[in-house]
């Protein structure tokens, strides 16, 4: 078993179909396989233990994923937004390696004898040359992909995904050649994110044309959708927020767009509601997944979206904020701190089990329990019909005098205030309670709200223990490039403020 089989099948069945489009460049599935096999042959000669990529979205990403698979080594896409020092530390952890660079990223890499640099342009040159026959090794336990997680503290962890994990995900959730001839998916997530990996594998197995955008920007996204007759897209919530803002009240004129999947963070309910109005013909899917689970483990499908949006029943309406139900390929449980499996409406920790779940890091080993369950460290609960709702990360819970407080509901309360544009709630050190509730607030342009007024706003909706003890006003909250709010940065500011005050 080897994920190279995915490309073999696509090239066998639809070799002449366009696999990937990037600007003016187009490669068919047959050409993609030639490029991947040719690179694999050179990797085998080089003795590289890893094939790394330091590049924006480009056809080199799918070529590299499959080339590493054919060569039987791990593919390691690196985050090009890291600092030079961080990038070189990661390279040190994967040497000896071959590293694909572009002219800009080449300048970020310190020269060393055990790392061979390959220019992206050379990797992609002359796809029309004769194929180099290469047999992919069949070890299902071999590592296919290694992803460095962003890690809130200390060194980034190296999550590993084996061929059997990724193959289980693809075969369990995608139907081969499901795409129509004219279908195309617009890929905007960066190659070093798990969604960037699964986009390549899923699209290739579905034989769906991938249209790549180097950097997300709403007008460029809309233009690419129109130009390439895009039928499908995956975006993170901030991207959808920006698209919706960009459109204003004018419905998007994208008649070919059929399906929009989103994930990678919490979707504001107002954003998805507006998006459904602006794209009435589009099927929306919320996909919940983690790096350690080879991507998607739960899905809120198009029918669920429409039923929730149309319902007057608050219990159904709130499902627009749910991540849906487990896919057929995995099982999900919510457990309490002691490991007891919880029933509907009881909040606890989310666990997942299935062939696609690797739950494994280099050096740290497998995090699965004896029965194969992986602790996601996400908090959540299900409703009576099994829809899963997430409630933040276990690490973000505020423990105030022994009481567990989740930031999410307080943020929702603060966001309901008309003057509030953005809000993040974190723990703050407190002598009396151990931890206290603190909030960072961004006000809407020209709007005003006092600390007392915002505290009152929370008090009216939630228990008094939820009222933020400290509130600071900021120009903007810190986000990572995929729109995840950086709570540790905000937490750190409150820690410093507290130590100055003391």
């Amino acid at each position: 078993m080897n994920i190279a089989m995915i490309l073999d099948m696509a090239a066998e069945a639809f070799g002449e179909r366009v696999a990937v489009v990037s600007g003016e460049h187009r490669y068919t599935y047959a050409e993609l396989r030639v490029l991947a096999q040719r690179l694999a042959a050179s990797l085998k000669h080089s003795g590289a233990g890893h094939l790394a990529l330091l590049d924006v979205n480009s056809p080199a990403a799918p070529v590299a994923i499959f080339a590493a698979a054919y060569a039987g080594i791990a593919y390691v896409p690196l985050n090009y937004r890291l600092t030079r020092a961080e990038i070189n530390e990661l390279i040190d952890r994967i040497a000896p390696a071959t590293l694909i660079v572009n002219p800009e990223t080449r300048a970020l890499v310190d020269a060393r004898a055990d790392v061979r640099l390959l220019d992206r342009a050379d990797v992609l040159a002359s796809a029309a040359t004769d194929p180099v026959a290469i047999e992919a090794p069949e070890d299902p336990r071999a590592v296919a992909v290694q992803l460095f997680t962003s890690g809130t503290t200390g060194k980034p962890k190296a999550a590993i995904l084996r061929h059997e994990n990724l193959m289980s995900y693809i075969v369990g959730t995608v139907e081969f050649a499901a795409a129509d001839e004219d279908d195309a998916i617009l890929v905007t997530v960066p190659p070093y994110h798990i969604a960037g990996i699964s986009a390549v594998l899923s699209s290739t197995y579905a034989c769906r044309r991938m249209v790549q955008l180097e950097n997300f920007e709403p007008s460029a996204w809309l233009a690419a959708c129109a130009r390439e007759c895009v039928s499908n897209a995956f975006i993170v919530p901030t991207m959808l927020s920006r698209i919706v803002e960009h459109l204003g009240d004018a419905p998007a004129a994208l008649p070919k767009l059929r399906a929009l999947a989103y994930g990678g963070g919490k979707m504001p309910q107002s954003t998805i509601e507006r998006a459904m109005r602006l794209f009435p013909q589009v099927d929306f899917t919320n996909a919940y997944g983690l790096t350690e689970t080879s991507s998607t483990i739960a899905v809120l499908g198009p029918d669920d979206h429409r039923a929730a949006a149309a319902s007057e029943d608050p219990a159904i309406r709130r499902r627009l904020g749910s991540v849906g139900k487990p896919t057929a390929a995995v099982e999900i449980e919510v457990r309490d701190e002691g490991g007891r499996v919880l029933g509907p409406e009881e909040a606890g920790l989310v666990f997942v089990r299935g062939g696609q779940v690797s739950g494994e890091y280099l050096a740290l080993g497998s995090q699965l329990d004896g029965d194969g369950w992986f602790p996601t460290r996400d908090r959540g609960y299900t409703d009576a019909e099994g829809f899963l709702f997430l409630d933040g990360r276990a690490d973000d819970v505020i423990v105030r005098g022994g009481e567990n407080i989740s930031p999410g509901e307080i943020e929702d309360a603060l966001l309901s205030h008309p003057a509030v544009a953005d809000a993040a709630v974190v723990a703050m050190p407190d002598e009396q309670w151990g931890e206290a509730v603190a909030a960072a607030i961004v006000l809407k342009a020209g709007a005003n709200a006092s600390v007392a007024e915002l505290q009152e706003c929370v008090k009216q909706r939630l228990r008094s223990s939820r009222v933020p003890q400290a509130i600071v006003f900021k120009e903007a909250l810190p986000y990572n490039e995929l729109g995840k709010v950086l709570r540790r940065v905000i937490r750190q500011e409150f820690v410093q403020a507290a130590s100055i005050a003391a």
Partner: protein
Amino acid sequence: MSNTVLNVVLKAGARFKSAVCDAQVMVIKAPPGEHSLACGGAAMLAAAATAPADATLDPALAGETLIGKRYVNADESLELLCTKGGKGTLVLDGTPLEIKQAKQLPSSD
């Protein structure tokens, strides 16, 4: 037909190829124990094996196996994914396999 009785243990992830046509399969799931897996009237071979020179496609078992389709037995305890199409019909323990209905899945990435 004599070479169809070769019994093998089918393990998830294992790959087999037809001795008489281009068909190749990967085991998705399999019942325990030994079974005879054939295609086009001849026992299927391990991916790396060489087909015997005298093996020929049985016209009665040339119903075609299609790339990307999943093939199952009656109780769906066996599921194979066809990774390369071929002319032969897939047969487990003497009974032809059926195409499994495609799942309707929303595209999630």
